[in-house]
């Protein structure tokens, strides 16, 4: 009589009845590609690091970022976050503030002094990285992690490239830049400054290098010919930004006209405001919609008092005035002159009409789109010489450069070892239609506090402030985990046949095919679309 209370008759369990035989479809757990990951130029697994951040495991989250990108604190300040543009949450309320969480994690790592150990055995191979900008430093970081001996040479006296000379300090404070670069140097990367390379072959021979990565950037300001008299100052944007980064305060006067519509134009216009200009005007030949500058930068510039003038070109400048011609867009969207002119007052004109690659190091390498041509493995036309960053035509942003550095490092590693590097296959995209919005609470995005406009135009203090832990956690928890199981137990709890087996935390679930009848409730009610019903073979 070893039976439970009130049970008198011994009977068999219905578990003898394997109802799995009824099934015509079976549920299968999938890991889809979340749109944030898909959009990230640096190839970060955003969904995965947010998953750790949600559980307050900030160190694991940071280490997840570091597998792809060595600059979380920099990214959290200068990245234009295409991840947020792609975020599915925008269809519910607002996109997740991925960038601000990344910045919180990056800053937390600097506060806590977290570092990444090099665990790979030494390969004995030596790689020369030319240029200590985002592409070069990212390549150096990944190559060091893979066990190679890396030397980074830069012509300047401080590392960082455009992150230092092109991005104003109100967007990227120099202490953050210095700390994230120092972390790479501490991994054993050799950094040689004031070491311009004039003869690449000689440098490779003398240093005994087995491979080269060129991250030389696009550092020459394009010129636009403007008929001008003698009494107007015409400067180029990169020189202005570089002087300011070097601690100087170039005299632009009170009335500054910036010519161009890219991010550099916005940076230099905002810098002019900080240098004391009272009247900064950006002149651009097309419309705001067609401006290459990112919307946030334009918005912040306008908040700071920068004025914008669309559909205008500069025809002549002299004697404190600039004559602009009005343009109109033709049916192809190209600006055409109208013959109507306006006079504007200006003490100086700053040209921000694009940048060119210094080709002196690229002799003998195939060119493409004003830069150097690389193949799918980031290798130039010369075996063993790879390139990335602004020197390779693509989108010229810090994040794209960091992505180039990573990709090149992995291919350099494969090339040095004589193996092929095969990036993992990209899974199907987790589109918004796969999500089950019912299960997500409404929660609007946390807006990062901004320095009050009136205060920030007079200083180079950082404009966008970081999140505190509470808000960062809140923001991380707004992630929908698109297409990737986050263990909400819906499938386990809602199966009418107890045919979902819950595994240990982190190990997710398993379908018990002995009993699963294939009703499909688990797939229909999965909040993040991580279950697909697949027809059974008959």
């Amino acid at each position, binding site marked *: 009589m070893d039976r439970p*209370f009130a049970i008198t008759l011994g*009977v068999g369990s*219905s578990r003898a009845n394997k109802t799995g035989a009824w099934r015509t479809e079976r549920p299968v757990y999938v890991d889809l590609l979340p749109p944030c990951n898909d959009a990230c130029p640096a190839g970060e697994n955003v969904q995965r690091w947010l998953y750790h951040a949600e559980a307050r495991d900030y160190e694991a989250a940071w280490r997840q970022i570091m597998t792809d990108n060595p600059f979380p604190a920099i990214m959290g300040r200068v990245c234009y976050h295409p991840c947020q543009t792609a975020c599915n949450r925008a269809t519910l309320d607002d996109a997740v503030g991925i960038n601000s969480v990344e910045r919180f994690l990056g800053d937390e790592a600097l506060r806590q002094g977290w570092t990444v150990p090099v665990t790979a055995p030494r390969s004995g191979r030596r790689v020369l990285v030319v240029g200590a900008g985002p592409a070069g430093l990212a390549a150096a970081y990944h190559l060091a992690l893979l066990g190679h001996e890396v030397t980074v040479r830069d012509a300047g006296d401080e590392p960082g490239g455009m992150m230092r000379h092109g991005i104003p300090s109100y967007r990227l404070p120099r202490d953050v830049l210095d700390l994230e670069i120092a972390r790479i140097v501490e991994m054993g990367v050799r950094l040689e400054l004031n070491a311009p390379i004039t003869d690449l072959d000689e440098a490779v021979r003398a240093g005994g290098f087995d491979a080269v990565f060129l991250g030389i950037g696009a550092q020459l300001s394009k010129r636009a010919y403007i008929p001008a008299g003698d009494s107007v100052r015409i400067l180029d944007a990169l020189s202005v930004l570089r002087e300011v980064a070097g601690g100087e305060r170039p005299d632009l006067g009170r009335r500054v006209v910036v010519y161009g519509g890219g991010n550099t134009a916005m940076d230099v216009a905002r810098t002019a405001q900080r240098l004391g200009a009272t009247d900064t005007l950006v002149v651009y030949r097309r419309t705001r919609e067609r401006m290459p500058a990112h919307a946030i930068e334009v918005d912040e510039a306008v908040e700071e008092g920068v004025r914008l003038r669309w559909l205008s070109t500069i025809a002549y400048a002299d004697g404190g005035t600039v004559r602009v011609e009005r343009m109109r867009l033709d049916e192809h969207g190209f600006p055409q002159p109208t013959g109507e002119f306006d006079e504007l007052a200006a003490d100086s004109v700053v040209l921000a009409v694009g940048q060119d690659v210094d080709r002196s190091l690229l002799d003998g390498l195939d060119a493409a789109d004003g830069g150097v041509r690389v193949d799918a493995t980031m290798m130039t036309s010369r075996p063993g010489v790879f390139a990335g960053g602004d020197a390779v035509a693509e989108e010229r942003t810090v994040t794209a450069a960091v992505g180039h550095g990573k990709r090149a490092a992995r291919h350099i590693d494969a090339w040095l070892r004589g193996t092929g590097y095969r990036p993992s296959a990209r899974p199907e995209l987790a589109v918004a239609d796969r999500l089950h919005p019912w299960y997500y609470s409404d929660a609007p995005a946390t807006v990062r506090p901004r320095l009050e406009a009136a205060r920030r135009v007079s200083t180079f203090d950082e404009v966008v402030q970081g999140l505190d832990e509470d808000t960062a956690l809140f923001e991380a928890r707004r992630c929908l985990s698109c297409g990737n199981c986050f263990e909400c137990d819906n499938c*386990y709890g809602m199966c009418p*046949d107890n045919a979902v087996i819950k595994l240990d935390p982190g190990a997710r679930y398993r379908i018990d095919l002995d009993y699963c009848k294939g*009703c499909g*409730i688990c797939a229909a009610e999965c909040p993040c679309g991580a279950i697909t*019903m697949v027809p059974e073979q008959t």
Partner: protein
Amino acid sequence: MTTQRVRFYQVGSFAVGNRLLEADQRTVQAGEHRSNALTSGHRACQGCGEALGARYVLDAAMRATGGRMVTVNATGCLEVFTTPFPETSWQIAWLHSLFGNAPAVATGVAAALKVKGRTDIRVVGQGGDGGTVDIGFGCLSGMFERNDDVLFVCYDNEAYMNTGVQRSGATPPAARTATTPVTRSSPGNAFGQGKSAPLIAMAHEIPYVATATVADLHDLEAKVNRAMQIRGARYIHVLVPCPLGWGTESSETIRVARMATESGLFPVFEAENGEVTSATPIRRLMPVEPYLRIQKRYAHLFTPPPRVDVIAQIQARADRNIRRFGLLTEES
């Protein structure tokens, strides 16, 4: 800047479990050690709402009573699909007698336990809508008026599904069943018939009455838990969609239950001693039409020419529930 407290979890409190919630805020169903009162291998149809509802209720009651519990079952699907001799799907003390006498048998079990001085062991009676609102109703009313210490749970799938989808006293107007066919003069089940068992239970002024659905597990478990804290007669009426009888996809069981509450057709509330004490507000109000449209038992309302008049009558019932139980808040 004002800091916002972290209270919105990734999936709020709507999913079954959530690794970010404290253990005591997670559902019983999320736990690896739930009783699984109703185990695998039962013969319910794919996507059966009643199998799900029964496990939800009984696992929650098992936790609330620490496993000291006897269940008495009326005849119906729930009995038939779980206990074809010599097999049983029940992993609890479970007793079946007849179709109409489950509340009386439950009363008897409670009385016997009292005589034996084992009032620590609680009694749960259960049945479908046929066994509860029709055939067993006299016994149920008696159990209520004597205030016997039993929780009776009705799993309402709105018809006699076990015997082939015949109309019950809980079948809603305009639904097609085997005994309410669609004819030129009638659009399925007649308007003005049927009854609300929860409201009749309230009229007995018993300590606790509640309604729930399989679409809101947190709410359902909280109500079972509350019921088990109370002595005397208690009644919970759970809406459990039936893919077979309603003509829905097996994967849509939860969805259709959610639509029933979000349209206002099935009000979710609780009452103590004859008075409504709370109603679960509608989160995203929707018209009745999409709810009707995904069920084949209402297909005749949409075949041309659509019965706009009948749909409007059903909408009026939903609107009345919304008014009567205060189902709308500013958020919905």
